[in-house]
């Protein structure tokens, strides 16, 4: 146990050190596109607030939840990228030739990516407040639950990303598949439009998208309503999502590295 901690801490610190040397790419790569969504679409689609069944006071308030969860989606799905590059550069071979518990590789990725994701969520919410005056009306407890929902969704995504990083040959294929996954996940969710405004088949599919659940919970918490029953249901759905993706991921992982 002590050994596992030492390994995991060392591997996590490596990612932190790398990040501190790539600050610019981090800012432009991860945060800026999300702000772009918020600002561009927020102004473009103000009228959506007049759609029947629309509960948020305005589109920006509505969109903030979508942007928060899209940020989680983005960083979660890129959670395996570093591992992929380690695999290609041979650095992974160096790590695996050490007498480490293989799980420390996975744990350190989870810790690091979830840390980054938390910071990103806070930055998005801060920007939404400073630019548009949107803030979680459910208060600090609500904020804590927003983080919880975000991280639970992120956990499963990181597992999926790590699985693909291990299973797929070549980063070209990896990024192609990521792009292929991201768009339908976003459009078949309530990130940009409420479920009431979707055609029937789309609404049907969105009902199977874990992202929809995460967004709906975050949205309620931002608008200010506490719907404990719904929140609980969302947490259960996300936990199930995590269990499935982590189970899958650990099978692929242990087949690859023993």
């Amino acid at each position, binding site marked *: 146990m002590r*050994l596992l901690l*030492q*390994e995991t*801490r*060392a*591997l996590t*610190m*490596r990612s932190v*050190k*790398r990040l501190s*040397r*790539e600050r610019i790419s981090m800012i432009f790569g991860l945060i800026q596109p999300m702000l772009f969504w918020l600002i561009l679409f927020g102004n473009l689609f103000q009228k959506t607030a007049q759609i029947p069944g629309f509960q948020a006071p305005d589109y920006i308030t509505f969109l903030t939840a979508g942007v928060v969860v899209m940020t989680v989606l983005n960083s979660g799905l890129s959670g395996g990228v570093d591992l992929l590059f380690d695999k290609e*550069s*041979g*650095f992974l*071979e*160096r*790590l*695996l*030739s*050490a*007498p*480490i518990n293989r799980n420390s590789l996975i744990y350190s990725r989870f810790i690091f990516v979830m840390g980054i994701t938390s910071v990103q969520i806070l930055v998005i919410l801060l920007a939404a407040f400073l630019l548009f005056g949107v803030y979680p009306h459910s208060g600090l407890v609500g904020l804590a639950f927003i983080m919880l929902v975000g991280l639970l969704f992120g956990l499963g995504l990181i597992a999926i990303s790590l699985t693909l990083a291990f299973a797929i040959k070549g980063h070209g294929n990896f990024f192609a598949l990521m792009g292929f996954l991201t768009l339908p996940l976003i459009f078949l969710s309530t990130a940009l439009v409420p479920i009431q405004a979707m055609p029937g088949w789309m609404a049907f599919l969105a009902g199977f998208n874990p992202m929809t659940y995460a967004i709906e919970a975050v949205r309620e918490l931002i608008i200010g309503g506490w719907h404990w029953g719904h929140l609980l249901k969302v947490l259960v759905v996300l936990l199930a999502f995590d269990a499935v993706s982590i189970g899958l991921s650990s099978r692929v992982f242990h087949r690859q590295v*023993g």
Partner: protein
Amino acid sequence: MKAIEIHNLKKTFGEKNVVENLTLDVEKGEVFGLLGPNGAGKTTTIRTILTLLKPTEGQVTVWGHDVVTQPRDVRQVLGYVPQEKAVDRFLTGREHLILVADLYHLTRPEAKKRIEDVLALVDLSQKADELVNHYSGGMKKKLDIACGMIPNPKILVLDEPTLGLDVESRIRIWDYIRRLQKSGLTILMTTNYLDEADQLCDRIAILDRGRLAAMGSPESLKKGLGGDRVTVRFGPGRNRLEELSDALKKELAFVNGIKLSPADHEMEIRVASNEEAISPLIQKIHQHGHLILAIQYSRPTLEDVFITYTGHKIKEDSALL
């Protein structure tokens, strides 16, 4: 107990047999070289020893531990310097070493001392706090070796340690390897440079298409070819070399064998390793009334060994590329 024991190792990827029927031992304290052309299966063998690949068949034991059932014990006694320069360009040299020290569970004070020692060993103390991004190829390789030495291993495994390096860096790395051996380390390395194997290795195994072609010390392998070679060229015309060859074999005790060129103007004579054979040889040839146009004396090289056992050169001539 041997440092490494490989018994009947076989490794297949899908349908392809990459290593077959490989049996060899590495003694404690020796520098053992796996020599072979590209694709011979050197890295595959090494990765099996490191527990990164599972053998398809056969047993591999490292310092008494089985690679399949006790992989962590095996990894604990090995230091590894991979073939590709496996460095993270966003870390400094020292950060690499700290990471590796943690992965081998050194305590803080142990790690600190060890890091200073290995940095001094590979002359990187001055550059330790620079980003690896700014290192030259030779420096990266040195850092690789330093990482391999951090765990204070029983066996250091180096996969093509001087591939693609300039002459000066190669010689420096040879020097580290010799010093490490003096300090009692067992070293297993692969190479496809014959001179490197010849200079560094106590024993070598020649691998060709996944099979062991020959094994032994470079000296004994060369001796096994039947001694030094004297090539004698005669003028054009009918030389009746067969008669001469029979006479030389009969009359000179140190002649081990003779090969004639088909064009009847060259003969290749194997003599017991000793330059003093040359003068009596020349006299005899003259006595038999032959005129020597040119004569060349050479010691067998590992290249000759390689060609003899595998039937081809280790590298294609670059002119053909």
